[in-house]
C-alpha cells in the first residue's frame, strides 16, 4: 500500500467490534474483514453517453469458528442495530453444523515476515479524474475507432472509462491484522462491423493500470478495437485437422486458467484433479516454466498477504515442465497433511522466450493464430478439454484469412507437452501475465 494512505479508524472499529461481538456470543475464533469499494463508470455509444454509474458498496464478512464448527457470513447491512443480531444468528447457525477438526485459523507464524515493499497499489490522485475527463476519454476512443481505413463498415462503437478504489481491513482473533487500499483505471472500446452476409462481428480492446497516469492512450485503444473488428470480416470455417496453434497473449489466460484450477488443494483432496500425485513429475515441455509472484509492483494479482493472512512469497509452480507446487490453503493442507503454501494464484511470472508474436507466427509457418475463445470447458478431473476458437489461418509464416466457428479438443496432459514456443510479451492487463504460446499437434474441428 502507499505509505501515505491508511484505512479509516471507523473502518477498523467495525471489524474489531464484530470480532468482540462474535466472541461474546460463543465463537472461539473469528476472522473479520471490512471492505468498501467505490466504482465510477461512463459508457459511451455512437456519439453520446449511454450510461453513467457511480456507486459505493461496503460489507462486513466474518469467518466463525464455534465449538469445532465453521461458517462464513457476510452482510451489507452495517446498521449497528442490525449487525449484532446478524452475528448472533450466524453463530447459532454454525452450531447446527457437524464438527470439523480440520477447520482452524492459520498458524500465526505464517503471518510473520510480511513483505514491506511498496507494491504501488493505490493512486493518491484517484479523485482527480473528473467527469469531463472521463467523457473526453470515452469520446476520444470512439473518434479514433472511426478514423481507421475501412471505418465505413462500422455499425456501432461502444467505449467505456471506469475506475475503482477499494479499501479493506482484516483482523483475526489469533493475531493477524492487515489492510489494503488499491485503485485501478480502465479504458475499453468495442466495435461492431457489418459483414456482407448479414453477420455483425464485434471485437474490441482495452487498457488499464493502477494509476491514472498508466491509463494508456485512448487513441490506440480505439484504433486497435476497430482494426480487430474489421479483421473479422469474411471469416469462415477451416477443415477439421491437426495443426499448429499460436495463441495470442491476450487470449491465453483461458487455457492457463484451466491448468491452474486443478492445482488447488481442494481439487486434489476431493480427487478432482488430473494433476494429483504429480509433484516432481514432468507434465509439460521444458518451456512450461512459471513462478507465482505476488510481489510485482502495480501487478493486478500482487499482494502482501493472501486471503487467509499468510504472508506473500514467491513460489515456483512449474520448472522446465516439472510440477513443483500446489496452491494449498490451511484447511485442505490439514486434510492432506501437507503444509499450506497459499490458497490461490497471485501473478504468474513466465520464463519468457526471445521472440515476438510476429516472430513466433513466422516460425510456425502453417497453423492457426487463435485470438479468442468461445465457450467450451475443461474437465479438471480428467484433463479433457474442448473449446470454441476464432482467429486467423497462418500460411507461409504470415497471417491469412480469418476463421471462426471452430473448436480445439484434446487432453491437457498432452497439450502442455506440445508447448514449443513462448513469446517475449507477457500480457500486462491480467494477473496471469501470459505471453504468446505456441503448441504443435492440436486437434481443430471445423468443416
Amino acid at each position, binding site marked *: 500500500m502507499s505509505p501515505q494512505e491508511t484505512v479509516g479508524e471507523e473502518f477498523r472499529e467495525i471489524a474489531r467490534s464484530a470480532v468482540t461481538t462474535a466472541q461474546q456470543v460463543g465463537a472461539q475464533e473469528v476472522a473479520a474483514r471490512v471492505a468498501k469499494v467505490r466504482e465510477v463508470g461512463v459508457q459511451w455509444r455512437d456519439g453520446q453517453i449511454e450510461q453513467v454509474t457511480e456507486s459505493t458498496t461496503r460489507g462486513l464478512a466474518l469467518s466463525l469458528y464455534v465449538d469445532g464448527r465453521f*461458517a462464513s457470513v457476510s452482510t451489507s447491512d452495517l446498521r449497528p442495530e442490525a449487525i449484532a443480531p446478524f452475528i448472533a444468528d450466524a453463530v447459532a447457525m454454525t452450531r447446527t453444523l457437524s464438527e470439523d477438526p480440520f477447520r482452524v485459523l492459520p498458524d500465526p507464524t505464517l503471518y510473520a515476515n510480511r513483505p514491506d515493499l511498496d507494491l504501488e497499489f493505490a493512486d493518491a490522485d484517484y479523485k482527480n479524474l473528473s467527469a469531463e475527463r472521463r467523457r473526453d476519454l470515452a469520446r476520444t476512443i470512439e473518434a479514433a475507432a472511426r478514423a481507421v481505413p475501412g471505418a465505413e463498415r462500422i455499425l*456501432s462503437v461502444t467505449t467505456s472509462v471506469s475506475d475503482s478504489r477499494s479499501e479493506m481491513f482484516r483482523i483475526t482473533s489469533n493475531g493477524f491484522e492487515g489492510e489494503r487500499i488499491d485503485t485501478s483505471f480502465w479504458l475499453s472500446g468495442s466495435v461492431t462491423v457489418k459483414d456482407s452476409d448479414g453477420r*455483425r462481428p464485434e471485437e474490441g480492446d482495452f487498457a488499464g493500470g493502477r494509476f491514472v497516469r498508466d491509463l494508456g492512450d485512448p487513441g490506440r485503444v480505439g484504433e486497435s478495437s476497430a482494426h480487430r473488428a474489421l479483421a473479422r470480416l469474411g*471469416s469462415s470455417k477451416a477443415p477439421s*485437422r491437426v495443426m499448429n496453434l499460436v495463441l495470442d497473449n491476450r487470449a491465453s489466460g483461458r487455457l492457463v486458467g484451466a491448468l491452474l484450477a486443478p492445482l488447488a488443494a481442494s481439487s486434489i483432496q476431493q480427487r478432482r484433479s488430473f494433476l494429483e500425485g504429480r509433484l516432481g513429475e514432468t507434465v509439460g515441455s521444458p518451456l512450461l516454466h512459471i513462478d507465482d509472484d505476488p510481489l510485482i509492483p502495480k501487478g493486478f494479482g500482487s499482494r502482501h498477504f493472501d486471503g487467509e493472512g499468510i504472508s506473500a512469497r514467491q513460489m515456483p509452480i512449474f520448472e522446465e515442465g516439472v510440477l513443483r507446487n500446489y496452491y494449498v490453503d490451511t484447511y485442505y493442507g490439514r486434510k492432506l497433511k501437507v503444509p499450506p503454501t497459499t490458497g490461490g494464484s497471485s501473478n504468474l511470472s513466465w520464463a519468457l522466450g526471445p521472440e515476438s508474436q510476429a516472430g513466433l507466427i513466422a516460425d510456425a509457418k502453417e497453423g492457426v493464430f487463435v485470438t479468442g475463445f*468461445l465457450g467450451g470447458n475443461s474437465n479438471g478431473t480428467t484433463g*479433457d*478439454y*474442448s473449446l470454441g476458437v476464432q482467429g486467423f489461418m497462418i500460411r507461409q509464416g504470415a497471417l491469412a484469412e480469418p476463421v471462426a466457428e471452430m473448436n480445439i479438443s484434446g487432453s491437457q496432459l498432452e497439450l502442455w507437452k506440445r508447448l514449443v514456443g513462448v513469446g517475449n510479451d507477457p500480457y500486462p492487463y491480467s494477473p496471469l501475465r501470459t505471453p504468446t504460446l505456441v503448441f504443435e499437434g492440436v486437434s481443430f474441428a471445423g468443416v
Partner: protein
Amino acid sequence: MLTTNGSLPLTPGSVGPTLGPTYFSAFGVDERLIREALSAALSRGGEYSDLFFQHRVAHNFVLEDGSVNRAFKGTELGVGVRVVKGDQTGYAFTEDLSLESIREAARTAATIAEGAQREAPERFHVTSGLPSRYATERRWDHVRPEEKLPLLTGLNDRTFSMNPAIRKVNITFGDEMSAILIADSLGRIVEDIQPMTLLYLSCVAEKNGEREQNTYGVAARKDMSFYSKDRLDLMVQEAVDRTMILFDAVQPPAGEMPIVLGAGASGILLHEAIGHGMEADFNRKGTSIYADKIGKKVAHPFINIVDEGTEEGARGSINIDDEGNAAGRTNLVEDGVLTTYLHDSISAKHYGVKPTGNGRRESYQHPPMPRMRSTYMMPGPHKKEEIIASVKKGLFCTNFTNGQVQIGAGDFTFYVKNGYLIEDGKLTRPIKDVNIIGNGPKVLERIDMVADDLAIDQGGWTCGKDGQSVPVSQGIPTVRVSSITVGGRSDRS
C-alpha cells in the same frame, strides 16, 4: 402478514386507499421518502426515474467428506436509483437507506440529464393483484438449518450405497429470500417476495485407476416441499448414472455432422442461438445478428419459440420484472417467423411497443436490461424415435454444462457432458466432454425435426450478461439439427 404465500401482501383485486410499502416499511421506507428520493432523481430534468429497493437473505450449506461442515450466509440491503433520458441512463446505489444517503445517490444518477427540475408524483398507486407464481408455506429465511441438513446427509448416504465405485460426494444446498420494491416517477409502487432454492449433487468415481466426476442439480422458486422423495431418488440415480457412464465414454470425432438434442436441458441451444440475439438492447444498438429480421422467416413453419415468466415455481419465473412490469409470455418465433424482441422499458419506448416484462437485474447494484426468463420451443410434429432413427452418423446430446454466444457474429457454443454416438439410426457408444459450435440463424434454419415431448429443464441455470447474473429456465422437445460443428478429436494431419 406477508409470509403465507411469498408473493404480494395484497389480495388480488384489492381496492381502496393506498397502503404504501409493506415489507420495506420495517426499513423506514415510506411514501414520503420515496417522493423525496424521486424528486432528487428528477432534479435535472430526467424523463423517468425509478427506485429499486432490495433485501436479500441467502444461505448455502455444503456437505463434503460425509458431513455438513460449512455454511455461508449473506445479507444484502440496498436501493438503486435510475434516471432515464431517451436511451441514456444514470445509475447509482446505496446500502444506507437513510433519506440523506438515497438523495445523494439520486443526485448522482440525475446528472445524466441537464435541464430543469421535474416534479415527483404527488400520489402513489400500489399495484395489487399480481399473479402468485411462487407461493411458499414459509419464507426461506424463516426455515431453520436443522430442517435443511437431513436432506444433505440423506442424499450422501444413498449416493455412496448406490455404487461402490463412488469415492467422493459433494452436496450444496442453497436457499434465498429476495424482497423487492419498485417505485417510479409514474407513481407506481410494487412489492414482491421472490424465493429460490437449489440443490447440487456431485460425485467422483474410480474404476480401473481412472477417475470421472459429474453433477446433477435442480432449482426452483419453491419451498421445502420441492424436495419430494421422488425428486431426491431421481437426483441420486441421475448423478451416479451420469458419472459411471463416463468410464465408457469417448470424445467423438471432429467436424460437421447431424445432432439430435434430447428434450429438456438442450434448451440451452435456444438460449444461445436465438434468445440473447433477441434481447432488444442489442437490436436497438444494431449490434445483434437479428437486428433487421423481425417479420422474416428464420425457421421451419413448425417451429415456435417463446420466452415467458409464468410457469408455477420455475427458476426463471417472475410475478413482475425488475422494472415493475407484468411478466407474461413473449413469442420470439411464430410458425417459423421472427415476431417479438425481449424488451425492457427503454427499448420498448425506443421501438414504440409495450414492455414485455424482460427488464431484469442481478440486484440493486445494477440497472435493469432485457433478459430472458424461461425460454423454450413448443412441441412439433415428429416423434423422438423417428428423429434418432433418421440419423446415419451423428450425436445424441442429453446433458450440458455451459454455453456462450457472440451476439453480432451469431456464433454460439454449448458444452456437452453426456450423450451417445448415433450410428445407422441407433444409439451406440457414450460420449463426453465435447463443445459444439454453430451460427445462430444458420442453426435455426437447420432444425428440421421437432418432437412432441417438450420438457422444461429444472436445472439451476444462471445467465450472465454485462457482468450481471440472473436465474433462467430453458426447455425444448427432442429436435434434430441437420448439420453443426462438433469439437471432437481429429486424426487428420
